[in-house]
């Protein structure tokens, strides 16, 4: 299997990372090398193996649904890239 330039562009779109043609070509080479290495897994027959979904083998705990933090608006907005005291500001989304 090999990954072509069109696939690289498609993945970059899914990952929301813009890349130019030069970078895409470089990535194509890297990804093909890495996937060639990954293909080794196909040597193994895993038809009867159950996938490992949790390493800790514990069930998630329940907790009471209660408010523990109040007045954290300022804290949450503190690292906002564009200043506004009440909201996160982004480019216009709705025309």
């Amino acid at each position: 299997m090999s990954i072509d330039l069109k696939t690289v562009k498609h993945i970059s779109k899914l990952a929301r990372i813009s890349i130019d043609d030069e970078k895409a070509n470089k990535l194509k080479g890297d990804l093909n090398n890495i996937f060639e290495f990954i293909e080794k897994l196909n040597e193994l027959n895993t038809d009867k193996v159950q996938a490992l979904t949790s390493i800790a083998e514990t069930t998630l705990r329940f907790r009471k649904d209660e408010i523990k933090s109040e007045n954290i608006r300022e804290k949450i907005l503190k690292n906002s890239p564009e200043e506004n005291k009440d909201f996160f500001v982004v480019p216009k989304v709705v025309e």
Partner: protein
Amino acid sequence: MSEITSQSLFELTSNIKEKKLSSGEITKAFIDRAEKSKKLNVYVTDNFEKAIDQSKKFDSNPNFDLKLPGIPIAVKDLFCTNGVRTTAGSKILNNFVPTYESTVTQNLWSQGAILLGKLNCDEFAMGSSNETSFFGNVQNPVGENLVPGGSSGGSSAAVAANLTPVTIGTDTGGSIRQPASFTGTVGLKPTYGSCSRYGIVAFASSLDQAGPMTKNVRDCSMLLEVISSFDQKDSTSIDYKRNSYSKELSKDIKGKKIGIPKEYRVDNMPEEIEQLWKNGISYAKDCGAEIIDISLPHTNYALPTYYIVAPAEASSNLARYDGVKYGFRSPGQNLIEMYEKTRSEGFGDEVKRRIMIGTYVLSSGYYDAYYLKAQKVRQLIKKDFDDAFSKVDAILTPSTPSSAFKIGEKTNDPVSMYLNDIFTVPINLAGLPGISIPAGKDKNNYPLGLQVIGKPFDEQNILNISYALEDKINFKNDISDWWLSE
């Protein structure tokens, strides 16, 4: 009394408790040395001014019952520290100042420790040489232009160079143990679920663990005792009774069964590592341990499995960096363009590469072939260890397939870089505890490490085995301070 900065954590805490040293003296000594050690590039952000204030505050009202009384400690820049910039080695978090504290760092401060600063690391902990950091390479104090390992490269270099008494790193596929091995220091990755992941910048959530990096095994047990705790804020934190690791530390390993896995004998492994391993085995025998040959048949599949699972989880975890709520933002004509430009300019090449791998293996039509397949092989790898641990108490292996390499030597070949973690990755996949201790040197006089792997929650056992081996090995790092400036 030896020079302050070369003292172990054990010595420093004893000297503070016996009032032979003050927190202020110790803190100042480490800061003075850091000012002369800029060439190593271990710090991304220092906290020196506040540290001095805090040390004075400690001295004016000392509490000697604490486990880290007035001890200054620098930590990997992957732990969120309230009010102190936390970058994860990335441009995308270059201006991020957390408004909350990670649980493991909070555990340090609650026991009296003082934050010295934030240590360089590979971007989002993705790397094995600290070369993917937005803030530049770190020099290994062992020798000029050598990598300190990664991703906790600033941490390993800082401990080896006596710039912090101890530190904490994180380990997703070897990021504590490999740099410890490259710098002649001790590094422990605890059992998954031992140390809270709350407030640690996430890379691969089913693999990430925080752990101690220290000069010796005793310090390692002291630090683990402080950072390991059950935490409601981490849904995978496990509630079990933790040992008093430092109190229960013992060199008596008589009758312990130690497994030697034949699959860890890889092609092109330097003869020195083979020899180091043999020495380790004979030391273990000298201590009365029983050596048993074992097999971990799926070892060779661990790295390919890791390079599906870790990037898949990373691509999900790093989806949050979109330039909206925090971090770097690159303006765009519309929202999508803003996302794409922000992520393109904010992430470095290795991080983008891994996000792309992860996005691909999770994308429609490929999930079963890659991600599900990898989760099945991960089960087989875990079963290998389960089987082995029905026969042995611990497993002894080399930590890495080579010693530290030159800066720039492997940056153009991702796969050869990934092979660094061949002995450490299986332990993360199986969620086990593993420790690397310095065990000897290669022909260039660069340190090499041995790894002791334990059963889940059996940190005490691998600490004890390491403590016994450390005594026999009697490793000396003899670093020359070549980087010091006036």
